[in-house]
């Protein structure tokens, strides 16, 4: 047990600048998604919007939520949760897409 407590000290040195950079990227992506929404791509519109949303969430998860510096356990956990949602969506649409 006591050995595991040491894990809290072995994280990377945080810097303000790095996170501000991530925030700038997120802002930029928000700008892009709003701008792109104005153009009508037909069916691709929603796909573009969702892709950008996924990239943004990835950035928040990895850096703001420190998933990058956590152990593999945390990453696997997130994977399991996302897998569950993915399975639910896929199987639900096995009904609605083939009606």
């Amino acid at each position, binding site marked *: *047990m006591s050995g*595991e*407590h040491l*894990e*809290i000290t072995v994280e990377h040195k*945080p*810097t*303000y600048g790095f*996170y*501000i950079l*991530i*925030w700038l990227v*997120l*802002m930029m992506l*928000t700008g892009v*998604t*709003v701008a792109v*929404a104005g153009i009508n791509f037909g069916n691709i*519109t*929603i796909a573009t*919007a*969702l892709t*950008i*949303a996924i990239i*943004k*969430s990835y950035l*928040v*998860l990895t850096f*703001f*939520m*420190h998933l990058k510096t*956590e*152990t593999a*356990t*945390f990453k696997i*956990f*997130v994977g399991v*949760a996302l897998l*569950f*949602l993915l399975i*639910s*969506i896929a199987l*639900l*649409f096995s009904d*609605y*897409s083939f009606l």
Partner: protein
Amino acid sequence: MSSIAEHTVEHIHRDDVGSRLGMWLFLFTELVLFGGMFLVYAVYRFTYPHEFHVAAKELNTSVGALNTIILLTSSLTIVLSIIAIRKNNKFLSVFFQIFTMVLAFGFLINKYFEWNIKIHHGIFPGSEILLAKGNGEILFFGLYYVMTGLHALHVGIGMLLIEVMTGLTIKGRINSTNYVRLEAAGLYWHLVDIIWIFLFPLFYLIT
């Protein structure tokens, strides 16, 4: 029964990694909670693509975009407050936490006005104007109110949570060697942000 405990074996047990693990698991439940609503959204959007398209035009994209900017910025400030406390800069940490709460409050005010305008236009659950519209539009606005409403509730809860953390930071109970509670509050706040990252395009940008 009457004798007083001579020696209480305390459950003192600190495990920061365990606490964070627990917080992440809790976040999954929140994620799936909203995930359930996204499933409903997905099915109805698939069933009524045109009506969702029409209904989304009623929403004000700039208000949504403004709220996105507010929440993303508040996500940054809560991260910065954690860095500050790790660098043992209590003042800066408290400053960033308060800044986060101000932004959260701004988000809620913005949301309040947005809803208010909708309600003034007669678009609210059960209103005659809404019921006169097509089924898809009724569902769109039903989901709009429920999903953004529940999200706003989470913003409110997050604000309270951060307020508690601010109190603890001022008292010194959250400090450069013990800040896992602030981290947990931060994780919660980021999740609220992530949910909005998806709500924004799905309601405001599909026109």
